[in-house]
Each structure stands twice: as C-alpha cells, then as structure tokens.
C-alpha cells in the first residue's frame, strides 16, 4: 500500500473523528451475494471514494446506509451510535442525504418541488400531509439555498423533465447537499454528464467539508476521483479489498486495485 502523501494537507484519518462506520455488512438477493462482509469508515470532513467494478456491491452498500436495503448481518454506526434504519426517511432524519445512481429526480415535478420533496412544510400542522403548501415559503427556501449551491441559474418553477442531464443532476445534488447534516452520499453523480457539467458538480462536492460534511462518492472515473477524494476504498465481489490515500498520479494504482492485479 502506498505511503501517505506529503504534499497533501494531511487529512490525517487517525486524528479525525469517526462519523460513519460500516462493519462486516452482508446482503444476499436470493442466490446473488451483493455484500459479503464489506466495511467502510468515514471521518469528519473527509471525502471517500468508493470504487469497484460493475456489480462489486457499491450501490448495495450505499442503499444499506440509506435505509433502502436491510442488511442480513453487520453493523452501521453513526457518530459512535448504532444506526437502525427502517426506512429511507430514518436516514434523512439522521442527517444522511443521498444522490442515487441514474438521475433520481421526479421528471413531472418542478425544480423546487424536487428540491423540497419530503420536506414540504404544511399548514395547518394538524392536517399532516393533507395540510396546504405555501408557494411563497417554498420560493423563499429555494432562494436561500440556490445561490450557495450553484443552481441559481436554474428556474425553480420549470418542470425538471425538460432540463438537461446536468441541470437535473445539479438539482439532485443540491437537494442532498442542502439538507444533509452529517453525510452526503453520491452514487456516480457524474456518470451521465458532459465535461462542464461534471466540473460544476465536482467543485460543489469539493467544498462540502468546509461545512463539516463527510462525503462518500462512487465513480468509475479515476480522474474525477483524484480531483475530489481524500481516500479511496475499493470493493470487489461484495468485500472491501483495500484502501489508498488519493493524490495526483495514483490513477493506475487505483485501477490495478479495482481489477485485482497487484
């Protein structure tokens, strides 16, 4: 394994506080084993790249942390406390926000509807979901966040289905970033994007640690990984098989580790 990089502002993993840890995660879909004892640590303000070939189990691990998939066995801890997730709503309530693979937006809703989905404030309270939405308040919420998240050029009242892939992904990322309190998880956020659109997303991601957020990012693009990540964790066949500090020029090593040739 390569030594810690000297020129990097050391993100000294040892002296940082552990935010999220997954231990020995196992999950089988029928006869398909998606996770076979995967582990993952994430420190405060750290950006970890989760790497691995197609089918390595990255998305499944993320879905377990997000409460979509229930693990067969294994433990997830957030801030040192066991995290019990019965639904994705639990994960959001714990401060974990996720951008899922394949543009996870509602094409038939507007930009600001997408941004606020599941977090709408209603009036009067006691009516619950049957309470009324306030368009004015939603506009205000959008304006508060939009400028900080580089989506200010997107019109909030436009239907998101009519926007380009980059704009849609930007809104999906903004939704996660705006409301996350502990961890932001991005599953291939740049997969469908062009060069400029990827750039914007990566810049946004790189700034998240300033706000005290930790990030897990899945990507197949090693150049993107090198640009944003502090550390890389590699998965193969449902297991975490190695990790490496990330700095310029490690692309080849990362690829070798993903393919399992050492």
């Amino acid at each position, binding site marked *: 394994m390569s030594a810690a990089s000297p020129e990097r502002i050391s993100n000294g993993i040892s002296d940082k506080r552990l935010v999220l840890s997954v231990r020995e995660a196992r999950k089988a879909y029928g006869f398909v084993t998606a996770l076979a004892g995967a582990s993952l640590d994430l420190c405060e303000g750290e950006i970890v790249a989760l790497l691995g070939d197609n089918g390595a189990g990255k998305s499944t691990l993320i879905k377990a942390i*997000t*409460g*979509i998939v229930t693990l067969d066995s294994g433990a997830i801890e957030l801030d040192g406390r066991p995290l019990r997730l019965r*639904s*994705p*709503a*639990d*994960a*959001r309530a714990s401060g974990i926000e*996720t951008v*899922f693979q394949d543009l*996870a*937006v*509602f*094409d*038939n*809703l507007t930009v600001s*509807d997408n941004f606020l*989905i*599941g977090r*709408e404030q*209603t009036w009067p309270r006691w*009516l*619950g*979901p*049957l*309470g*009324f*939405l306030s368009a004015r308040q939603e506009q205000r919420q959008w304006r508060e966040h939009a400028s900080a998240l580089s989506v200010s050029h997107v019109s909030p009242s436009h239907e998101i*289905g*009519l*926007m*380009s*892939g*980059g*704009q849609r992904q930007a809104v999906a990322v903004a939704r996660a970033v705006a409301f996350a309190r502990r961890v932001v998880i991005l599953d291939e956020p740049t997969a469908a994007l*062009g*060069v*400029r*659109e990827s750039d914007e997303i990566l810049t946004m991601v790189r700034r998240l640690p300033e706000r005290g957020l930790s990030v897990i990012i899945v990507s197949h693009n090693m150049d993107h990984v090198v640009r944003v990540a502090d550390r890389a964790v590699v998965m193969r066949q449902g297991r975490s098989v190695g990790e490496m500090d990330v700095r310029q020029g490690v692309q080849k090593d990362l690829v070798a580790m993903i393919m399992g040739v050492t």
Partner: protein
Amino acid sequence: MGADVDIAGKSSGTATGRRDALSIVLLLLQAGPIIILVTLVVAFGLLAPHFISVRNLQNLLAQSAIVCALGLGQFLVILVRGVDVSVGSVIALSVVTVATLTGVDQPSSIALVIYPLVGLVVGLINGLLIVKGGIPQPLVVTVAMLGIVAGVVLLISGGNTLVGVSPAVHWLANGKVLGIPAGALMVLILAGLFWLLLRRTQWGRWLYAVGGNPDVAQWVGLPRDRLIMSAYAICGTTAGIAGMLYHGRTGSASPLSGVGYELDAITAVVVGGASLFGGRGSITNVLFGALIIATIRSGLQQLDVSPFWSSVAIGIGILVALELDVLRKHIENRIRTLRARQVNQ
C-alpha cells in the same frame, strides 16, 4: 473570427427556436381536451339543429355526471401508474346494497353514506392486494375484483331488481339548481375539492411524485404504499358516489347496474390527457374528457347515427389519445437534448 462567432450564435439561435416551437406543441397537447370538446360541440351544433339547446345541454351534463365522478377517482389511480376496472361492479354493489339494506320504499338519508362506504371498502381491498399482496399488475387484480364483486351483487340480490329509490337520491340525480342538474353540480364541487387536494396539499404533490417515479419516491422516504392505497380507496369511493347517481337516474336497483362503465371512466381520463405512464394529468382535463365522451354519445344520437358507431368513435378516441401521449414523451426528450446541447455550447 467574426464569422466563427456568427455561426455559433446562429446555431444556438436555431436550437432555441426549435425548442420554443416544440414547447408550443407541448402546450397545445396540454390544451388538447378543451380544444377537442369545443370543436365537437360546435360541429354537432352545426349538424344537429337541437344539439345546442338548454334541454339537451342539461341532459348532457346530467348524463356525464356519472362518468365524471368515476373519472375523478380513476384519475388518481392512473396518476400512480395503476388502473381500476372494478368500478363498474362497484356501482352495482353500492346500488344493490343500499336497496337491500334500507328497502326502497322507506325514504332514508342514511343511504347517502352507504353508497360511498361500499365503494371505499372495495377500493381498500384493491389497494391492499396491489400494495401489500405484492401483485404488481393492477389490471389483473381489478379485473378479478370486477368479477368477484359482480358475483357478490348477484348473490345479494338473488338476481332480482328492486324498483324504487329514496327521494333524496332521486333529487340529486334528476333535480336542478338554477337550471343546472344537481348531480353535475355535486360532481363539480367534488372536482373542486380534488383539485385543491392534488394541487395545494402535500399529499397531492406526493401522489404526483409517486406516479412520476415510484422508486425515487421510496428512496426519498415518501410513504409510497400508503399513497397508492389512498388512490385506490378514493377511486372506490367515487365509484360508490357514481352508483348513487346511477341509482337515482334509473330509479331501480338492478344487479346489472353500471356494466361497462369502467371503460367510460378510463376513457375519460385518457382522453383527458392523463398519461398511463403515470404522474401526468389534471382534474379539469378529466372533466373535459368525460364531457367529450358524453358529447360524442349524445351528438351521434341526435344525428340518428347507430349507437354502435359511438363505441367505435370512443375506441378510436382512446387510441389517438394514447398516441398523443407517446408523442408528448418524445417531444419532451427532444427538448431535453436540445437544451443539453445548448448548455454545452
């Protein structure tokens, strides 16, 4: 250099132009139902001398009230990518249940509650089977329910028709308020309520979200299953209300009440421009859809065309509406790529 800039400017200009043209087509598609309705009314008005008369229009509204009521509930189900074909039988079940429970001679206003309650029960069963039973084909589930309920209706009624209906129900179906049929007015108020719920409440927005992308809805933590259940429950309830209007209009409780109405309900929603892909459509267009059907029926009747032809016309109407929906999806994709190209220029 100057030429370069010119070319770049021009090409992005035409892309914008094309996008705007496509956006206009999209708007036209959205306004389609009202355009079709007005065209039909004008055409029949010119062809059939008595078509645009107060009496005929009153009749038309009263007739369409049943399909409108059915369409409101059906729209919610189609919005969440489902369909409910059991509503025809639910009409019969509500009618026969009321007639059996309250008797037909005793005027009883409790009946007004029983119709929607019967529908609610069937709707909840549909929703439970589809959501909790894990049967992913709503069509098959509700076809089975159509048969089951039709059988239950025959069992309850013994195949007999009870003649008579309570005065309150009779008035709702045949009475008039300021010249407007009471049933139509009731459905209009109901539609207003639906519009408010769908467009102004969190529940409504979530329903559109679930229809637009059920997986993402679950991922972001919306109560997807309960939302889908609520759509089926409400669809059953509106079918019960339609049963009340049906009972009032026919004045008797036949076990064969409402046969075939499920097709009209689905047609109204689809012709009204709601997408079978889910997540698209509006309450107003559903009403227009129901009125289009009623107009075709009544217009062809006035022209002394065989009623068989109206089936053909309505069937063609469904197919055209479905094709237009596919076209809409296609145009949206085009707009998206044009916009992406512009962003990357």
